[in-house]
């Protein structure tokens, strides 16, 4: 068996590991070999021809998508992209199911540390319950009841494949370190005592953040019991005591002013126009005066996206089940933060780091960059 980064990571047999390596290779092929050809066709051949007639391919991306879909080759590429994603979930699911009783035993025997609070009455919001985001069967909320950790294990194993090593390998913690670097860049003298991570999934970022503030009480919320049980055992095995609870970030049961730092990481693009201001107002309520809110997001904007990027974005939204993918790139999220009453609002790009350093020269910048190289960061202070 291969060495695992923490006690909860499902182990892969020889053949499972080979299938995983292949599905990553297939995704790479579709993304790096085939997709650039569609990009060239749309952005370099079709867009200029439309432009010569005084038309804007970017504006017409929906119609362009429909024209492309008349091509068998385009439909084949679409289907293969979906099939590769399904193959990833299938192969990971098979690996997890083979060892599920063992994983559940490990989660319940695992060292104390942190807690999990689930709510049988909980219903996830429409933007998470209508389709299974990323085509992950069952979605984030899937839970088979007390002791179940399956969805957490599936997500954790797949995330390591999905990001293809660009988010900190098997720990998938670059986003957590990058959030902390943003905090150090903007507020070098501060040390939070109570921290909340909204939309923590299996605690990839939460655990990384907790590592910088060993005295702090750290909470993570998300919509699925199986995710959260897995998250607790995972962070405990990495030496962090984190309190997880099943709650909606739009409305939690924490008391007013109970946190010094409220964050989210790659969550906002999976919500909705209606949820954004609600989440900002809830974060404002939860912070004590002087407390800080930070959100990390994908560094993509719709207005600057090329015609192909828009067509690709629509595909992502409709067929990789990311319903808010385009909406989030159009939303003025910084404005919702100001409207919620935050002061000192800053938005820009934070270079991704594997380790945050309080003493480092601040590198938060207004210059965009590619996904995984920089992250969009939005932060504000409650006065």
């Amino acid at each position: 068996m291969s060495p695992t980064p923490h006690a909860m990571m499902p182990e892969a047999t020889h053949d499972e590991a080979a299938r995983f390596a292949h599905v990553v290779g297939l995704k790479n092929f579709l993304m790096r070999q085939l997709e650039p050809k569609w990009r060239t066709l749309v952005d370099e051949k079709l867009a200029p021809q439309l432009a010569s007639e005084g038309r804007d391919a970017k504006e017409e991306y929906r119609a362009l998508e429909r024209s492309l879909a008349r091509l068998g080759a385009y439909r084949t590429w679409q289907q293969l992209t979906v099939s590769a994603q399904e193959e990833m979930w299938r192969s990971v699911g098979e690996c997890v199911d083979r060892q599920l009783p063992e994983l559940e035993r490990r989660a319940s025997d695992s060292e104390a540390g942190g807690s999990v609070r689930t709510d049988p009455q909980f219903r996830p919001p429409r933007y998470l319950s209508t389709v299974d985001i990323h085509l992950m069967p069952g979605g984030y909320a899937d839970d088979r009841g007390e002791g179940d950790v399956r969805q957490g294990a599936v997500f954790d194993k797949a995330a390591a494949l999905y990001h293809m090593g660009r988010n900190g390998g098997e720990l998938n913690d670059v986003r957590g370190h990058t959030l902390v670097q943003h905090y150090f860049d903007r507020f070098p003298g501060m040390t939070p005592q109570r921290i909340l991570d909204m939309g923590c999934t299996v605690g990839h970022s939460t655990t990384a953040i907790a590592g910088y503030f060993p005295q702090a009480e750290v909470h993570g919320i998300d919509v699925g019991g199986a995710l959260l049980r897995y998250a607790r055992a995972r962070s405990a095995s990495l030496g962090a005591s984190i309190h997880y609870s099943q709650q909606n970030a739009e409305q939690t049961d924490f008391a007013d002013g109970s946190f010094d730092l409220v964050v989210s990481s790659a969550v906002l693009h999976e919500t909705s126009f209606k949820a954004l201001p609600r989440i900002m107002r809830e974060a404002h309520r939860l912070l004590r005066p002087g407390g800080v809110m930070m959100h990390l997001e994908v560094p993509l904007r719709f207005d600057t996206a090329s015609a192909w990027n828009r067509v690709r974005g629509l595909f992502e939204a409709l067929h990789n089940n990311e319903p808010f993918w385009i909406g989030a790139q159009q939303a003025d999220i910084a404005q919702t933060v100001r409207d919620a009453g935050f002061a000192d609002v800053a938005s820009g790009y934070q270079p991704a780091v594997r380790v945050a350093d309080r003493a480092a020269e601040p590198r938060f910048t207004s210059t965009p960059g590619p996904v995984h190289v920089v992250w969009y960061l939005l932060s504000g202070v409650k006065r």
Partner: protein
Amino acid sequence: MTELDPEGLVFRDDPSKRSAFFAGQADVGRLLGMITALTSEIAMLRARLDTHERLAAEGGFDRAKVEAYRPDATALAERMTDDQAMIGRVFKPLSDELDRLLEEPAVQKTLLETHR
């Protein structure tokens, strides 16, 4: 439906159904799914064969040794190159068709005509 709803969300016409790219020919979609799975099995078999060959070079193998074998970084890189080449061969007809689309102004013209 490709318009965002008032909450900024967009879904397939029937979100409860899987994406169907081949209207009236669902079997084509299924066939591509099967080819994808089959390619994964070929990749796994190639990896297993590679394990056997590497262990043989080290003096021999049995089932336990094969199961326990994990490629080191060099072996893994070699396997990934090999896998990319295999994928490239299996999906060559698609990639060739894309190259043809890029080279033929006539096809592009038809595309834009349907677009009008």
